[in-house]
Each structure stands twice: as structure tokens, then as C-alpha cells.
């Protein structure tokens, strides 16, 4: 349904009136039903000229977008059988008005409930005009072409605020870089030696790829250092906030440990073999679950303590010693001796 302002609805009437008046003036017709004089025609035209920009302004996307989906839903749902009307006069919906047999009181009640749930329009405007608050968590990959999921994206930590400043948050960082180097072997050796300087270890290594596990707090310095080693063609970082899972496991562990202790107590109090067996059975189940949770907690701790950094190296050959990724005309890549001579 198209949203139209009163000014917009008035325009066709103005226009028709103006045309009719001009026609009457031009052909000398007279219409007893019309009392429009020559000056009034000019007034009508002037109104049109003023009205058009105003109308355009009132229909600007920013204003139209000012209404959230929740608002629209409310308008349509609360106006049974009057959807079209509700949308046409949408701007006046906040004013009390008895429309289509719906009294103002329930509307007001619904409206206040909606404000409670979604916030008032003024709040939304304030929220829109205010600068967006930065995401809570830091990240370590400047200028990467790949990126983390929006909900887990973190701002770049400053020198003063390194990643370890996230007290209490458990975040798994996974990063990668694709680097063009002149000497592949040297690059691989350098990458292999990084854990000796920054801690961590080499997880896997192949002809041109090294996967490192680096202490999370050192991820940024390592990536920065590597950026100076060659031409970084691609850099990406993903973060996964596992704080909720971490907290959940810790709570469950506490509860299970309590149950475990109680079961041990019960086992000591068991008088018959049958009782002891039943308690033992329950104790085994709890113990097994405890071990699973402890294992997961260890795994999470390891994943948050060490970041995975995948380094892909490739050698700049004589054919393309200067990467032309930023060259708008990389035509020279297909020129030269290597492209011409037959070997």
C-alpha cells in the first residue's frame, strides 16, 4: 500500500483546478460552477511549486524508513479491516482518534505497550542521530578483506588496549594471511620460528602453508610483523565469543560436583548392596558427565588461550615480481620475455 501525505493527495486537485482554469482562460469558456479568477490560478500554480518540494521532502527515504517493521505491524494489526486507511494516514496514528469503530482507549493502551517494548519514536530518533556505539570486543585484523560475522566482529584493539584486556570474556580468534614473498623457503622458516619468539606451536606445515597456534595476546604483534615480511594480499580474522558456553559449563560443573559429593555421601550411608549399587550407578553417570564437561572446558580454554593463524605464502616469480593486485591495468603481466620467448 502506498504511503501518501496530505500534501501529496492535494496535488492532483490543485493540478486539475489549474488546468481547468487555464483552459477556461485560453478558450474563453465560462463555467458558472467555477469561481476561479485569473489571480487564483496563479496562486494555485504557486502552491504547486511550493508543494512539490515539500511533498518530495515528506517522501524522502530517510523519513519513510523512520518507521520500523514493528511499527508497521502494529498499525496493520490494530486496525482491523482498515489497513489501507491506517497506512494512508500513518503519520497521524499516534494521535487519539476513533477510527473504524476502534476507540482511542485500547489504542492508547496498545500504543503504550508498544512504546514499552520497542521504545518511543523520539528514542529511535535519538538512537539514530547518536553515533553507533562500538562493539564490545576487540579484534586484531586491520584491513582484512575477509571478516568475522557481524555479531562477533570486534573492533581493532589499540596499542593501549590489547586483546588481553577482555577480562571475563572468552573469545576464540581464528586468523589468516596470504602473503606474497620473494623467497618461499625463507618465509616458511621465518613462520616456523615465530612460536619460539611469541610462544605457541606449529600445528601443521606444508609446502606453502603454515598453521600456527599463537597465544591470543600475541596474535596482533605476530600479524603486524608478518605484514612487513612480504606483500599481504589477504588478511582475515574471525572471532567467536564462547563466554556463554563457558559460563554454562562452569555452572553445570559446580552443580554436578555438588551432586557427586552428595552421592558419595549417600554411598557411605548405603546399608544394603542394592542401595550401594544404585548410588554407584548414579555416581558413575555423574562422573562421566563431569569428565565430558571438564574436557570441553579444557578444550575451550585452549582455544581461547591460543589463536589459530593460517599463513599462506606464495612466491613472487620473475614473471610477476611486483603483485599487480592494485593495478587497474595489469596488462604488463602478459608482456615480457617469459610471455614471448619459447623455451
Amino acid at each position, binding site marked *: 500500500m502506498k504511503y501518501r501525505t496530505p500534501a501529496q493527495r492535494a496535488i492532483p486537485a490543485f493540478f486539475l483546478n489549474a488546468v481547468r482554469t487555464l483552459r477556461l482562460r485560453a478558450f474563453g469558456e465560462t463555467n458558472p460552477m467555477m469561481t476561479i479568477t485569473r489571480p487564483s490560478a496563479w496562486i494555485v500554480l504557486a502552491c504547486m511549486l511550493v508543494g512539490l518540494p515539500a511533498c518530495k521532502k515528506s517522501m524522502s527515504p530517510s523519513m519513510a524508513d523512520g518507521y520500523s517493521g514493528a511499527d508497521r505491524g502494529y498499525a496493520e494489526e490494530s486496525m482491523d479491516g482498515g489497513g489501507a486507511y491506517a497506512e494512508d494516514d500513518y503519520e497521524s496514528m499516534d494521535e487519539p482518534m476513533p477510527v473504524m469503530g476502534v476507540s482511542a482507549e485500547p489504542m492508547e493502551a496498545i500504543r503504550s505497550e508498544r512504546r514499552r517494548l520497542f521504545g518511543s519514536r523520539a528514542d529511535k530518533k535519538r538512537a539514530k542521530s547518536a553515533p553507533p556505539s562500538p562493539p564490545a570486543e576487540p579484534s586484531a585484523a586491520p584491513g582484512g578483506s575477509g571478516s568475522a560475522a557481524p555479531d562477533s566482529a570486534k573492533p581493532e584493539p589499540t596499542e593501549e588496549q590489547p586483546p588481553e584486556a577482555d577480562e571475563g570474556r572468552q573469545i576464540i580468534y581464528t586468523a589468516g594471511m596470504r602473503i606474497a614473498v*620473494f*623467497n618461499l623457503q625463507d618465509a616458511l622458516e621465518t613462520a616456523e620460528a615465530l612460536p619460539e619468539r611469541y610462544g605457541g606451536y606449529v600445528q601443521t606445515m606444508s609446502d606453502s602453508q603454515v598453521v600456527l597456534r599463537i597465544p591470543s595476546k600475541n596474535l596482533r604483534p605476530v600479524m603486524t610483523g608478518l605484514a*612487513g615480511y*612480504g*606483500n599481504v594480499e589477504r588478511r582475515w580474522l574471525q572471532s567467536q565469543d564462547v563466554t556463554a558456553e563457558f559460563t554454562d559449563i562452569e555452572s553445570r560443573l559446580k552443580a554436578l560436583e555438588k551432586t557427586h559429593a552428595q552421592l558419595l555421601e549417600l554411598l557411605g550411608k548405603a546399608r544394603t548392596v542394592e542401595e550401594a549399587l544404585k548410588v554407584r550407578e548414579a555416581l558413575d553417570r555423574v562422573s562421566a558427565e563431569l569428565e565430558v564437561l571438564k574436557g570441553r572446558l579444557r578444550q575451550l580454554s585452549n582455544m581461547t588461550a591460543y589463536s589459530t593463524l593460517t599463513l599462506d605464502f606464495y612466491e*613472487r616469480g*620473475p614473471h*610477476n*615480481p*611486483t603483485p*599487480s593486485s592494485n*593495478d587497474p*591495468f595489469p*596488462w*604488463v603481466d*602478459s*608482456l*615480457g*620475455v617469459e*610471455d*614471448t*620467448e*619459447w*623455451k
Partner: protein
Amino acid sequence: MKRFLTILAIASTTTACATHKLDPPEGFAQVEHSEYATTMIAPDHVGLNVRVWSNVKGGSLGFWSEDMVNKLGDRGYALTRQSPVKSKNGVAGTRFDFDYTAPDGAEKFYSAVLFASDKYRVVLQVAGDAELGARYLAQLDGIAGETKIRGCKLVNSLCKSPQPRPLEVAPAADSKAPAAAEAAPAKAPQGSAAAPATTDA
């Protein structure tokens, strides 16, 4: 008359589609040919080819000459000579001769003749072992003169662009490129980074 017009239309359509035309010069055999590339080979492995790209607005002979020479310079090519040439159909071009030392130390000759028409930029290039250079480079102007370059407008055409200014190879200044820095001294004796190119213009 109708038949003549039909033939004329077909002929003009056919010739309009071709971006360039070069029959194999003496001593070369054509290996492959397409609208945007022609590749030829001599028995001593000297290669001769034509590469074609679409031109862009402002893509004059001077612009592409500088772009090509600078980028080849970054790749270790030392400009030794720059001279004007003309294609068979009168398109202005410039010939650039380079010295080049391959990473394995082999000395190579390389020459690129650049043409810029309104629709295309075309490079005729020849390369091989340095000791064969004199023989093939002597033929190059003649080969360029036998090449037809298409894509010229009738008025305000780039095909009649003035010759580029005398160019020099910019010294390789990639601080992140130790190999390039190491390779540069090897090329220096041949020359052009230190000595400016000869200009026959």
C-alpha cells in the same frame, strides 16, 4: 550493384571484427591466432607475438608507453632504445627495446612495439637469447610496418597520437623486495637504469 554492396558489407564487417593482422614474417611460423593474440615462433626459440587489449578513454600512446615502460622497469627490464614506428595502415606506434637478465642469469633481448588505436592497445613483442637480438631486432621495424591495427576513428583519432616523451626506466625501489634489490645490480652493467635510453625519435 546489390551483390557488390552485399560483398562490401560482408567485407567491412569481417575486417571491422579483426583487432589486428600480421602474417608470419620470414623465419617465423604461427602457433596460434585469436582476436586478441597472435603467437609465432622462430626455429631458434625466439618468440614473436601480438597482444591486444581494449583501450580506454584517455589511453593515448604516451599514457600506455609510460605505463608499460614503468611496469616493465619494475620487473627488471632495462630500456635501451625508444623509436617511432608506423603500422601498415598508418597507426602511430613506439618501439621500446629492453635488456633483461632472467633469474637464472641468462641474458635476453626483448622489444615491444606499442600501438594505441581508439578501440585497442596493441603490443607487438619479440624476445629471445641476447646473442640473437641483433638479427631479430633489425627486422622489427619492418615487421611492425607490416602489422595492421584496427579500431581507429575517422576524426579526433588516437591513432595519430604524438610520440611519447623520451622515457627512462625508473630504478626499482621496492623496499619490501630484497630479491629485486639483489637482481638490480646484475642488470646494471647492461644498462639502462644507470644510462638513459637512446631515443631515435
